[in-house]
């Protein structure tokens, strides 16, 4: 750095090649260069191997391995070059005053408040109309943009609708046949005591809001009470030891799929809500707030199980319009 020569060109000072700021940080640059080159060669070999592996249609593991080696080799090589062989400095860059000068600010602000402001003051009416027009335009665009997206949800229980546009509706009606997901009608002696089955109203197999879990609590004959511990006001809702509940968890609508026969509990695997089947499926534990709605069922002369009415409330999780 002895001979500072001619005045600077550009804005920044020159340096000499032996300036310590420009020297590689590697102790042995020759060796580092060789290592970096080696890494890149290994990388290249990896990519070649990848092409071969793809060619012979080997497993995904081989593809990942060769591709990984390829990118790792190339990457490590370049990093070594940059980190150990390129000038490391330390170099410095000045931060200049970040914001603009007072003059610049003033003239900028003046353009807005002055040039713009005068126009606004002079044409108040035009501005108002334009703003209003813009607002109406937004509304006009939003209507198809939002309203077309889906049907309006039905407002209340009384509103008739399909299950697609109402949270209150299911396809369960008085007389609907209980069928399995495959469409097989369910007969009264299909289940043993402790057995469970997911059933649907015939014609709606697999439908989400209609899913019902049918449980046989006890072996009861036609002359016994309909089911072991009948809930008040619902004494006729079970039949011959069978009860049926909506399978939609009242927490977030997961299917309440796990029946523990010993404790007669239904467990929701999503957040571990537990419903006591014996006591009208009231939630015993967990975040679910409400009992699973009960479906009144009956048996016809042929032994076919049927719904004896629809649900008396909306199934599934809570929502604002639910009374």
């Amino acid at each position, binding site marked *: 750095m002895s001979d500072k*020569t001619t005045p600077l060109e550009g804005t920044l000072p*020159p340096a000499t090649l032996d300036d310590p700021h420009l020297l590689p940080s590697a102790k042995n640059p020759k060796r580092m260069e060789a290592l970096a080159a080696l890494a890149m060669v290994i990388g290249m070999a990896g990519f070649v191997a990848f092409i071969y592996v793809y060619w012979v249609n080997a497993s995904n593991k081989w593809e990942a391995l060769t591709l990984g080696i390829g990118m790792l080799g190339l990457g490590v090589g370049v*990093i070594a070059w940059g980190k150990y062989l390129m000038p490391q400095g*330390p170099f*410095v860059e000045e931060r200049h005053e970040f914001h603009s000068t007072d003059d610049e600010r003033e003239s900028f602000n003046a353009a807005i408040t002055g040039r713009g402001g005068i126009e606004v003051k002079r044409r108040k009416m035009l501005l108002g109309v334009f703003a209003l027009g813009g607002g109406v335009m937004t509304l006009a665009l939003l209507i198809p943009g939002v309203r077309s997206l889906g049907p309006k949800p039905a407002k209340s229980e009384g509103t008739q609708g399909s299950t697609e546009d109402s949270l209150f509706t299911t396809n369960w009606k008085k007389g609907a046949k209980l069928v399995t997901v495959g469409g097989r009608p369910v007969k009264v002696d299909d289940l043993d005591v402790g057995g469970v089955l997911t059933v649907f109203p015939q014609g709606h197999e697999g439908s989400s809001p209609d899913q019902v879990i049918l449980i046989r609590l006890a072996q009861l004959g036609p002359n016994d009470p309909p089911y072991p511990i009948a809930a008040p006001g619902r004494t006729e809702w079970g039949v011959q030891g069978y009860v049926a509940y909506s399978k939609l968890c009242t927490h977030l609508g997961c299917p309440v799929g796990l029946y523990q026969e010993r404790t007669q509990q239904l467990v929701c695997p999503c957040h571990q809500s537990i419903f006591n089947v014996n006591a009208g499926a009231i939630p015993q534990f967990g*975040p679910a707030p409400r009992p699973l709605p009960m479906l009144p069922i009956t048996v016809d002369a042929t032994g076919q199980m049927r719904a004896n009415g629809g649900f008396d409330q909306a199934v599934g999780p*809570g929502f604002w319009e639910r009374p």
Partner: protein
Amino acid sequence: MIDKSLNWLDDRLGFAKGGRTFLDKIFPDHWSFMLGEIALYSFVILLGTGVFLSLYFVPSGHEIVYHGSYVPLRGQHVSEAYASTVGLSFDVRSGLLMRQAHHWAADIFLGAIAVHMARVFFTGAFRKPREFNWIVGTLMLILGIVNGFLGYSLPDDLVSGTGIRIAFSIIESIPVVGSYLGFFLFGGNYPGSGIIIPRFFTIHVLIVPAIIVGLLAAHLGLLVKQKHTQFPGKGKTEHNVVGSPMFPTFIAKTTGFLFVSAAVTFLLGGFAQINPIWQFGQYEPYQISYAVQPDWYMGWLDGALRIMPSWEWVGWGHTLPLEVFLPAVIFPGLIFNILIVWPFIESIYTKDHEYHNLLDRPRDRPKRTAAGASMLTLLFAVFFASSTDVMANFFQVPLIDVLWFFRFFVPLAPIAAYFLTLKICQEMRAAEGIGKRKHALVVERSTTGEYTTTASPVRPGDEHEELEAIPVPTFIDTTDPELATAAGVRRVIR
């Protein structure tokens, strides 16, 4: 030759004026500054692998009979989305690698954003003038989580389908507008009119990525304009940046880093199985898998839902499902809003409205550090609460006890973490410099019984003097005649 073509380009683009400053940009070195780069490169990998996936994935809930090469599924009725994802995994060459790499890249992307954010928070890099970049970053985190959820939902498998059902119910829980929002998003009551997968697809591959790209451009543009922060150190002030130059040093290192990130992602994608949807089966609304586990970045919401008591509010002809609305809408809303306004809250509280380009050591800002630790503890606590059932099984304790433990642990642990961190910071500051001593002290006892301590002499080689930082040089002077003809090198006649 190079000179000529650069000039040709400059005639048309005029980039040389500002370009030089850009090439001379200085990047300070610190390992923690690479966290943001990991996030950036994972996003690049997401775009690349995602485009590959989108060439084969069929975004349709339409039911077909599976005929692909995965034998256990043959003849079953599945949706086109599910069939094509299984196809991607077994019939498209390199498909499984790309699928799994895409999924891993998403997990790494969000993890890197979270850790990057923690770095920015604990070092105070969000202070004036960088508040906007903090907000932009938080928005990218939110969008990343949303897009991760949407992508996870696309294959229409049993596990992710359950997640969509839960999402619908969460939307339903919003007072007044909930059912409208749910119906508009799903095209009707759940499971919707079969439109949900195509809709999620468009949002996942187009809308959200496009917004993220825009935010990313703003993020990096601001970074260039405001320049990087740096840790205090020799020659480093509020008014400069010390480090290595953009070109060529930083470019080389960061390009290499992109390759290494991609290598790690693809190795994970090949060797670490993730989301084997062919084992879960097609989603059916009446079926449930017992291993419902969302991706890790959704776990904290799931945990909050689990420990919430069943506080449904009913009155005036309406239902307000607080047991869902509070943990799944209000709680994350609060967290993200606190994050967004934090820089402003802090500057109001500290009355500090100055520019800050030098970073804090976390211990020097005990209250901020304690607040951050408290927030992290809260998030970890609810995250762990999402595996109450796993823990109950593992420790052989009743589920109900685990639940009650978390109902207390989640609100109390953050408070404990706050005071503990405050104390640790204060202790560390009191002990400042203790760990730093480079060489031993020599303690001597004089004949009169007096003790004196002196520093032991520095051994040669122990001492390394740091260079004074200089501006990036324009020209290299050399006496080497061979080099002297290269661009930017001037021969010095001796």
